[in-house]
């Protein structure tokens, strides 16, 4: 993934258009495999338009009047502009504001839990020596391939017996115990850092926790931010967890809440699609913003690597 950021050379030749002809025969633009034909542009523009269409359609539905919703007569491009829909969702009709707050609470607590725990565990696996460490690390790796569905039912029983059902606790607390993927990331990251600093600190008599807090933690920020982004996108969009554990509408996060609205509309009556789409925009927008603010950390981590197709 680093390639996206570390290839200034071809980019320069592309942006300086006039001298491109002069470069013919040397720059990569002259090679047949990299030559853009009108067909290239036509295809890319058509595909980009098709992929953007659903997003435009969401906007159009979100701006529709209730009458349009009831007759289900949406148009691809917006023909009416009911901007008040964006304030209506926070009014008395829908608890969208509550959903949003719930999402923020659950996500931020989960992010804090993962950042606190994964950093510590990953550092220990990378730097400290102890008998049995390699076996433990093998277990860490092995747990990555266990599908969550295996533990779903017993975990539900466990949390039910603890009286945690219909609270945020089952969604938040497990994050304070790190997870294999994040531990792996931190461990890889720490292994790449020079060990001279923490060795010097050790000679100066700093304890292991002191080394972690004063020396490692300031250097771990890039990987911790990447972990924070992963955890945030995961919990923000998580549907199954809240679906299993939360019953009260007032406790639901946005991802479950907008589905709940569509499922509870009276029989034969269509859900308030305009407001549902406003909810969908509220659900998607923070993730798009977070991605664009944080993408340099994600690329630095070199990890978006394995995840195409897995969402």
């Amino acid at each position, binding site marked *: 993934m680093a*390639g*996206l950021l570390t290839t200034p050379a071809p980019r320069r030749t592309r942006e300086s*258009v006039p001298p491109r002809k002069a470069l013919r025969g040397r720059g*990569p633009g002259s090679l047949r*495999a*990299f*030559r*853009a034909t009108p067909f290239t542009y036509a*295809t*890319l*523009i058509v595909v*980009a338009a098709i*992929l*953007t269409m*659903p*997003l435009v*359609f969401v906007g159009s539905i979100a701006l529709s009047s209730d009458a349009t919703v009831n007759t*289900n007569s949406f148009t691809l491009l917006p023909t009416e502009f009911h901007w008040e829909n964006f304030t209506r969702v926070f009014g008395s009709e829908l608890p969208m504001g509550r959903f949003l707050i719930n999402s923020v609470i659950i996500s931020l607590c989960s992010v804090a839990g993962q950042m606190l*725990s994964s950093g*510590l565990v990953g550092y*220990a696996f990378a730097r400290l*020596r*102890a*008998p049995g460490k390699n076996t433990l690390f093998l277990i860490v790796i092995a*747990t990555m*391939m266990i*599908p*969550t*569905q*295996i533990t*779903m*039912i*017993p*975990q539900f*029983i*466990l949390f039910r017996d603890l009286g945690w059902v219909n609270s945020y606790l089952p969604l938040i607390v497990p994050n304070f*115990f790190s*997870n294999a993927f994040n531990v792996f990331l931190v461990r890889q990251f720490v292994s790449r850092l020079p060990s001279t600093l923490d*060795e010097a600190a050790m000679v100066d008599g700093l*304890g292991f926790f002191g080394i972690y807090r004063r020396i490692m933690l300031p250097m771990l920020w890039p990987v911790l931010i990447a972990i924070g982004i992963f955890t945030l996108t995961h919990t923000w*969009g998580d*549907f*199954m967890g809240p679906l299993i554990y939360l019953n009260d509408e007032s406790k639901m996060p946005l991802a479950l809440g*907008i*589905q709940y609205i*569509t*499922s509870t509309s009276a029989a034969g009556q269509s859900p308030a*699609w305009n407001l549902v789409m406003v*909810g*969908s925009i509220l*659900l*998607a927008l923070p*993730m*798009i913003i977070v991605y664009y603010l944080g993408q340099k950390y994600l690329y630095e981590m070199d990890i978006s690597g*394995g*995840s*195409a*197709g*897995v*969402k």
Partner: protein
Amino acid sequence: MATLSKPASTAVPKTGTSSKRRRREALWFYLFVSPWMIGFLVFLFGPMIASLYYSMTDWDSFTDPVWVGFQNYVTLITDDPRFWRALWHTFYYAAVSVPLGLVLGLWLANLLNKQVRARKLLRTLIYLPTLVPLVATAMIFRQVLAPNGPFNDALGLLGISGPSWLLDGDWATPALIVMSAWSAGAATVLLLAAMKGIPKELYEAAEVDGAGGVRQFWSITLPHLTPIIFFNLIMGMIGAFQVFAQVYILVPKGKLPAAYAGAETMVPYLFDEAFGNYHMGYASAISWLLFLVVLVFTLIAFRTARRWVFYETEVK
């Protein structure tokens, strides 16, 4: 071995203090990894054992479980058409959606890898859908795939009269596949980055030898990408076997029963058995069969790991 790999320990002069130090270090190690260890035991290992036990019982989670041995597994495999249908839908979805996403991704990445203007904008537009959370995506496609929605309108422009996707059991799984194709941008960005790592000299040499653009794609670009494509194919399959929210929201059982029956995959079935019918034992058995399927694909991924790991280091 540890002393050799870490020269710092030479800073500690006496061997007596060194062994004491080492014990202290081990103690700190176990203290530091305790969050993971506790989490592993309480949220993973314990539940796995419990799940294995549940899968051998008949249990509604309120009364005492009744031991039935392998009966749940036997019933699932020999006497449960709904399970086989769910398994078939899962394979159908995985076998079409994952290769489709990668082929689309490869095709788009190859186009974006050319000297196109506004590449950044085009890449952003193609990648944007992958940032939309699943729940929102499914909500959007409920409308996009409506019988008179924009997707059928677009098909109409091509002279195709589109099916009534979400109202028709036979078209529900294809509808899920169409929705998954919207996220082809994930593979595009990934493969585009990998393409940047292919040495330009290879294309120059091919040019000198008179190879055309198509030939260069098949003989240079594709062979360099096969390991990464293969890895993503396996990982994508594992993810696809576990689809849940897509099915649950796009074709809700309550509102679109015909489409749901035509698209139900393994996890929604498991979920319905566990939290709809309270057949906790039976649902646990389904989860273990799902695990078996995922395991087979994971093992394939690991057996072939050397191929793609080697390539990754090669790029850097």
